[in-house]
């Protein structure tokens, strides 16, 4: 087992090295693109380190941009999840709520998240509120859909078991339906987190004054492909960290090794 893991790490590291070598060959050695269009890994690494402390050309350090993007994502995400869980539970557990809300919800959820950007910028401008609202819409829809189907799939016989034991409807919701929907909920949380992260970059590319998307946008207009790549890599890294954090939470909350 341990040997297998070691082998897996070795392969992963090998792939990354291969990627860097190919990148290096394409950019610095063979120069397949017009000069300056594809900076090599060394140049990007240098820009990355430099960007950690310089505020030019976009008015903020890399950390400043990461902070700006993360703040918006987390605000929109937390509110979206906090509103989405009870809404999904109400819809799944109470038929009248479902009957009333579902038609509107099913219609609204077919509108892609980015399609909200223009109308939200009209209502709320291009500040934190507007971007958080876009994230919120995405996350809310994803969370509702997942917890809803999670609760709907609760095994009938498990509900019977609880009924035989004399559990009431609310007790069954909290002690049977919710725990059994947790794996679904976590899948939803992970998907909406990466969607939120993608959404923020899209929002910042279109309308913003800070954040990683904005940084990329400025770098592009100033002809700084090295900084564009720094921005892209940072987005990837942060996304990976966020997913890892949720996977750790999943391991803590989802008991009994269910998958």
């Amino acid at each position: 087992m341990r040997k297998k893991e070691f082998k897996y790490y070795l392969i992963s590291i090998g792939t990354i090295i291969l990627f860097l070598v190919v990148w290096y060959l394409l950019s610095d050695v063979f120069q397949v693109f017009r000069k300056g269009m594809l900076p090599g890994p060394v140049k990007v690494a240098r820009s990355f380190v430099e960007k950690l402390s310089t505020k030019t050309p976009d008015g903020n350090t890399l950390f400043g941009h990461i902070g700006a993007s993360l703040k918006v994502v987390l605000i929109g995400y937390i509110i979206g999840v906090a509103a989405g869980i009870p809404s999904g539970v109400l819809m799944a557990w109470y038929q009248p709520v479902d009957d009333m809300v579902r038609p509107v919800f099913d219609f609204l959820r077919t509108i892609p998240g980015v399609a909200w950007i223009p109308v939200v910028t009209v209502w709320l401008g291009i500040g934190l509120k507007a971007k958080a609202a876009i994230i919120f819409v995405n996350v809310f829809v994803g969370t509702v859909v997942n917890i809803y189907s999670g609760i709907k799939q609760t095994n009938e016989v498990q509900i019977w078991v609880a009924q035989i034991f004399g559990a009431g409807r609310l007790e069954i919701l909290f002690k049977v339906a919710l725990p059994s929907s947790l794996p679904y909920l976590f899948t939803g949380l992970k998907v909406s987190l990466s969607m939120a992260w993608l959404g923020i970059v899209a929002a910042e590319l279109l309308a913003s004054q800070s954040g990683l998307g904005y940084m990329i946008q400025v770098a592009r207009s100033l002809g700084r492909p090295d900084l564009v790549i720094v921005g892209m890599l940072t987005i990837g890294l942060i996304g990976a960290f966020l997913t890892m954090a949720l996977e750790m939470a999943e391991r803590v909350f989802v008991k009994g090794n269910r998958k």
Partner: protein
Amino acid sequence: MSSMIEVKNVRKLFVNEEGEKNEVLKNVSFHVDKNEFVVIFGPGQCGKTTLLNIIAGLEEATDGEVLKMGETVSGPGPDRAVVFQDILLFPWLTVMQNVEYSMKVRGMDSRMRREEAGKYIDLVGLNGFEKAYPVQISGGMKQRVGIARAYCTKPDVMLMDEPFGALDAQTRYLMQDEVIRISSTEKRTVVFVTNNVEEAIYLADRIIIMTDCPSTVLKDIKIDLPRPRSYVDPEFLSLRKEISAMLNRKR
């Protein structure tokens, strides 16, 4: 004195979405006395589980009724615990927590709960596995948890729906002996459903033989073979032959 369970002229009709009718139970009547081990045996796939669910109050009879100690059954309750065919423990709870669950619902305090659950975990021979999650234990062990969980509600009647159907033959024999041992320690009324004739004769004080679809009572026989019984005892074999012949004639 009235019987523990009295099933009176129960009929069950399922109607599917196309309006096709499917009668699975037809005019079923029998009774179960206190502390009796009654096996409902039938060859087909038809009606037995439905019948048990009706006694449990999980499904409603189309016609007829079920009485428990003279009172009409109108819904599920802890007085009629069920051990289900599919082993359905709560996968997010440990063995101990699964067994404790019914007492938690009743609001018993945690120390008494643990003590009581521990007693039944001992009874089904699962000590040492209290902290294991269902995914970590075998099918036979899961069904033991299911039995301990059912006993914990202190039911008047244990309803067991082909509890060993999914187990391999060896484990099945073992579990049959366990059930006999457990029910002699903790005297209870048991209604046990099976489609296995040997299992029926091995366990039962009385066998209710059911026909295939629509299911109805074909015969009600008392089994007074001495216990412990043996599968190869001549009397056992002749009973088995007799019951099989009865079913063949019917077919």
